């Protein structure tokens, strides 16, 4: 009986596990972001980069400055002087000051709020996207992106990464040539390795911003599961004790 029970559980688990990769593979062909939101220094670096290079256009309307301070281990003063450049109050959310009308004129669309970007698109997408800008004179703002072709956004991090250009392969007749790879034509302030680290930090920060509860949920979860496992064991002993009556009654 026990054996049969175990094999049915194994079968059920096997089926469940077999289906997971199918969805995990959603970001096909993307390099893993390799973020770690438990690394507070990485989140702090990511926040600094975000507030220097991204917040000019993109809001984090669900994230409050005060929450950033407590979650990233920063003081109110540090957040208000180093991260908050809009004059917002400490308890207010992160709202970009770019006027929507100007944005439409400059980029053709309103830059999206990034609060939930990491949950909607995935961290791998963000990380690869930030690394895949290249110069493309055919686009209105002069930039294109291999991860999100014809994106309306120029590369905000070009001074750090440098300028990338595309190496095109042979074009099939009647079709545009595909981008084979990207290469740095003008070096930036960071080496390619440093730049990958920087974009990884931004991605980690956005991952945190998409679900601040993730910071506490895992550390609480460990204790909850230990408690429940202990409780289950005690309940098993209780059942065992009671069921002696039943087993004696044959």
């Amino acid at each position, binding site marked *: 009986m026990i054996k049969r029970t175990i094999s049915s559980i194994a079968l059920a688990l096997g089926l469940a596990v077999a289906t997971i990769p199918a969805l995990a593979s959603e970001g096909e062909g993307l390099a893993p972001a390799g973020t770690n939101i438990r690394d507070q220094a990485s989140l702090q670096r990511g926040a600094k980069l975000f507030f220097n290079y991204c917040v000019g256009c993109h809001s984090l309307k669900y994230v409050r400055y005060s929450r950033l301070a407590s979650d990233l281990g920063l003081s109110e003063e540090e957040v208000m002087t180093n991260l908050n450049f809009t004059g917002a109050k400490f308890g207010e959310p992160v709202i970009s000051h770019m006027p929507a009308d100007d944005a439409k004129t400059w980029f053709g669309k309103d830059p999206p709020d990034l609060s939930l970007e990491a949950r909607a698109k995935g961290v791998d997408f963000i990380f690869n996207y930030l690394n895949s800008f290249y110069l493309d004179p055919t686009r209105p703002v002069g930039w294109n992106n291999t991860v999100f072709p014809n994106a309306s956004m120029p590369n905000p991090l070009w001074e750090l990464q440098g300028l990338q250009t595309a190496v095109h392969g042979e074009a099939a007749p009647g079709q545009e040539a595909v981008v084979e790879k990207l290469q740095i034509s003008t070096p930036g302030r960071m080496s390619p390795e440093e730049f990958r680290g920087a974009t990884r930090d931004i991605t980690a920060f956005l991952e945190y911003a998409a679900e601040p509860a993730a910071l506490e949920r895992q550390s609480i979860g460990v204790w909850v599961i230990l408690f429940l496992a202990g409780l*289950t064991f005690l309940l098993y002993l209780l059942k065992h004790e009671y069921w002696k*009556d039943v087993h004696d009654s044959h």
Partner: protein
Amino acid sequence: MANVFSRIGDWVNERAPNLAPTYRKHMTEYFAPKNFNLWYYFGSLALLVLVNQIVTGIFLTMNYKTSALEAFNSVEYIMRDVEWGWLIRYMHSTGASLFFVVVFLHMFRGIMYGSFKRPRELVWILGMLIFLVLMAEAFMGYVLPWGNMSFWGAKVIISLFGTIPYIGGSLVEWIMGDFLPADATLNRFFALHVIALPLVLLLLVVLHLAALHEVGSNNPDGVDVKHGPKGNKWNPEKPIDAIPFHPYYTVKDLVGVGFFLTIAAFIIFFAPTFGGWFLEHDNFTPANNLVTPSHIKPSWYFTPFYAILRMIPSFFGTAIWGVIGMFGAILLLALLPWIDKGEVRSVRYRGLGFRIALGVLVFSFLALGLVGAGVTAEVIPEWFPGADVTTWENAFGRLMVLGYFGFFVFVWVYTRFGFEKTKPVPERVTMHD
């Protein structure tokens, strides 16, 4: 102190003399077969999840805003600014998926051990009604966060009613209260989700249990303990192979509860989206009627039925056949007591044909789930490069539709015309542990 309690007890007894006997009838003097196995945990677990959904749901409504403009923001407010809001929401969203896990296993148990057969047809019918209401409840709950998948899922599912000839178009507008899923839709779905359907669900659950306790539980051997020898150590008139539900099955079910909560806690705290199966990526984007998600698909627990809908082609100029197939798949399950005419209940003593058919049913149901979730469409190009995805998916999906409906046809023919060769059913229940 004990005196005070007994005086309160007497006071209540005088005024409501039926309360104590009711408690005894359903708990201490409800005798259940003693040979329940793993498959018998899922009924009580479903009740546990129902309570979880109601309690967490009450707390969610305290901060949720029923409005197309505010709903999405209010869910994020719950996730970020409400004390423990994230935990309550994850308990509710994980609970919804686990509800279907335990209900599917509970239903499979019923089919496997013939629990739907005479004299428990009414228990089965009430259970199928619970399943139907549960699906409506889950669908409407899924719309409430007003993410983009909420919107498009609602649009696709509601438009199914549009396939009904003549009245379809106006019916769809009547359900939505607008030409698209909109504020009116969200408000009425909220009303149905938080009060109307839960009331119906609770009533049906009470009836399901009352009907069960009237006829008594089946067991893995499918042996009728009520008609067997009498007299056990608790009661000389009750079946020899039965034990009082309380305390024996209450403590046993508590072990199941402990296991279940541990698994649930693992999901809630470490994988609340469950890789996109329990909370989908596209639903972290607000509803937008101008941007279609790349793959519109319902929540995983609807995917087998959704696949039946998609796999049945339209002909005679109407797409209603898929809708009929989808609802027919549920209706046939409800009619199982009259389709399966075999006398032997438990799969342990049934013919080989039934065992194989049951395997086919489970396999095609799971496979249809993968088709409906779009997994086959992703896997086919990987495994068979150059294959035409639609052709292959349709071929596989339609084969699985045949497998699902084939179960019911086969079982009817197999049992109606006496093809089944059963094994002898023992006089008394067997216990293996």
